[in-house]
């Protein structure tokens, strides 16, 4: 018996060690990118590699936010602003649309309720370009190419089905009796929704909001096609342009990459509780 328990302990210890090793290996490329952004030019591509920076500098970051008429600088500020606005606004709108629709799906019987899951999956399945190409032509007719509004509209509709699905699950967890009670007390359906169900679903709304934000923040293919100039170009496309414009300014690229990372890391921290549920379309709670 004792040897068995000892063996269990050893295995657990080994597993922990392995887990840490894997974690380090997993986070290593990211660590490398982040610390390169703080490196002095000489050390960036030093051979043999310098594992910990000896000198730290913010010059890569300063160059990123430099003025437009300076040599070879990128309109990074505009890209950041664009990404932020688009992600926040499309997130907001998809929350509004999605929460309402999610509520409807969870509380009422619909024909085609089955198809909700299918349509959510289908949204994910559409290749970005398949949607981006026709939108380019269509948006041109209504002057929406190279505008933030165009992107916001598109992302909102791409995210909404997912939000509907998530919120449907969250609302399903809230007993219908609570809003029924409000109805009996004389509230209209809208009032009941607003006063009772939505506050109770607040955690779900927050989670959906964050998922939507991240989906828009990370999107590349459609932004690539629908945006032209810094007026509307977003960070992922800006990063892609980097590879052309800065040719081999690795410090700058890593700095841009690190900045793109920050909301991702911060928000991931907040939703890690709902991560599995969100990513598997609520199939696993």
């Amino acid at each position: 018996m004792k040897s068995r328990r000892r063996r269990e302990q050893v295995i657990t210890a080994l597993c922990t060690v392995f887990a840490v090793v894997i974690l380090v290996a997993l986070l290593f490329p990211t660590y490398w990118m982040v610390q390169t952004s703080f490196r002095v030019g000489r050390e960036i591509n030093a051979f043999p590699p310098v594992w910990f920076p000896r000198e730290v500098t913010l010059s890569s970051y300063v160059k990123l936010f430099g003025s437009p008429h300076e040599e070879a600088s990128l309109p990074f500020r505009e890209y950041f602003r664009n990404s932020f606005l688009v992600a926040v606004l499309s997130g907001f709108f998809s929350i509004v649309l999605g929460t309402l629709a999610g509520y409807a799906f969870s509380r009422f019987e619909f024909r085609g309720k089955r198809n909700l899951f299918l349509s959510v999956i289908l949204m994910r399945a559409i290749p970005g370009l398949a949607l981006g190409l026709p939108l380019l032509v269509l948006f041109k007719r209504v002057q929406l190419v190279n505008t933030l509004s165009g992107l916001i509209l598109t992302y909102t509709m791409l995210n909404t089905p997912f939000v509907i699905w998530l919120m449907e699950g969250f609302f399903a967890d809230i007993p219908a009796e609570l809003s029924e009670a409000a109805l009996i007390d004389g509230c209209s359906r809208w009032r009941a929704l607003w006063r009772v169900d939505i506050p109770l679903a607040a955690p779900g709304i927050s989670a959906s909001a964050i998922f939507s934000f991240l989906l828009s923040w990370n999107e590349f293919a459609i932004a690539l096609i629908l945006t032209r100039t810094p007026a509307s170009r977003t960070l992922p496309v800006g990063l892609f342009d980097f590879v052309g414009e800065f040719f081999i300014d690795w410090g700058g690229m890593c700095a841009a990459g690190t900045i793109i990372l920050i909301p991702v890391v911060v928000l991931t921290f907040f939703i890690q509780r709902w991560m599995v549920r969100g990513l598997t379309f609520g199939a696993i709670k």
Partner: protein
Amino acid sequence: MLFRRFLVTLVVFSLVVLLSLSAMAQEKKPFEGVVLNAYFIGGGAYEKLYTKIPEFEEQTGAKVNIAAKLSHFELNKRVAQEFASGGDIDVISTHTTFAPGQKDFLLPLNEYLTPEDLKDFTPSTIEASTVDGKLIMLPRHTDVRIMYYRTDLFEDPKEQEAFKAKYGYDLRPPTNWQELLDVAEFFTRPPDLYGFVFTGGEEPLVGTFYELLLSAGGNFFDEEGNVIFNQEPGQKALQLLVDLYYNKKATPEGVPNYRWDEVAKAFRDGLIAFYFDWPGWYTMMKDPKESKVAGKFGLAPYPVGPAGYAKIWGGSHGFAVAKSTKNPEAAVALVKFLTSGDNLYFEAKEGGFLPASISAYQRLKEDVAKTGDPLDLKRLELLEQELAGFVPPPKIPEYQEIVSAIWPELQKSLVEGRDVKVTLDIAAEKVRKILGR
């Protein structure tokens, strides 16, 4: 408790939305005067000319919005999308290689300019900028390549001895293709030094191939328009590149991903013994802050090909006006300003370009005669020789498509060693399909 949390969330959301909306509203400030949207080539020495733009803005009251500063590949793609979707585009950077493909969207400038305006431009550059009788761009500077080589390597007696012992003739910047291969092989000592480097993909690869094709006595098409680049001269040309990259491994491995910026940087970083490049990099090459080979390089003419001569592929950078511009006069004025004799002289002095302006070129020569830097003088001489005989790529609108179709095939030989005849036959077939022949 939950309700309070919900309230907080709601307030935060509203604040964020309000802030965002107000930020967006602030964007819509009214513009004073005319605004010209410009899409320019960016990077390195190209941007010095743009520092003159505030002068134009002050003189004319117009505002120039540089919507993009990109390498030409990215720029062309963006410009094409812009044209297709009817975006706000007034002035663009273009090139004699790309302009024929863009001609449907470019404003013919002969309607806005007099022969007086055009007097100062080198005739061959105007000729290259004219398609179907319409002048669709004003030339800025001309690109022809010359050979840069490391004087510290080539003039080192130890190296010379070793080379002579191995190959039986004196070490010198290569004068023909066999020497090119020998010297490249000799100086390849990875990972610190490689003999040669070239652009291994996309349009730069096709241009390099084109140049070699011409120097081997061949061409893309014959007089009747038949595809002939897969014949013997083409095979020799491609074989040279394959020998350099694949068989002798005399270039860095990343060459298929290298474009103009990367090859120049490789040489600047001291990794390469010799290579061919555009005059625009010259100033950066001489600057010790930017270049590890400052003061350690020399210039030489191209080696001749199997046909006994060296034909140089070249073209002129320039500016053009979009047909869809809402302010043609202002746009043309900007283009004229940017290509004025004074500004082209300024740019050439700062960046080492070959201005298309005759007066600017004269002034450059005078400057060099005064300072007497032998390298500068040699450079201008070499360039003058080449300007006389440079060859632009076929001025057909399908050129871009052709390039796109054949470079992956060329890469197959480079990267996998596929037989050059097979590759070129496949490429020729693709080109025939594109042209419908």
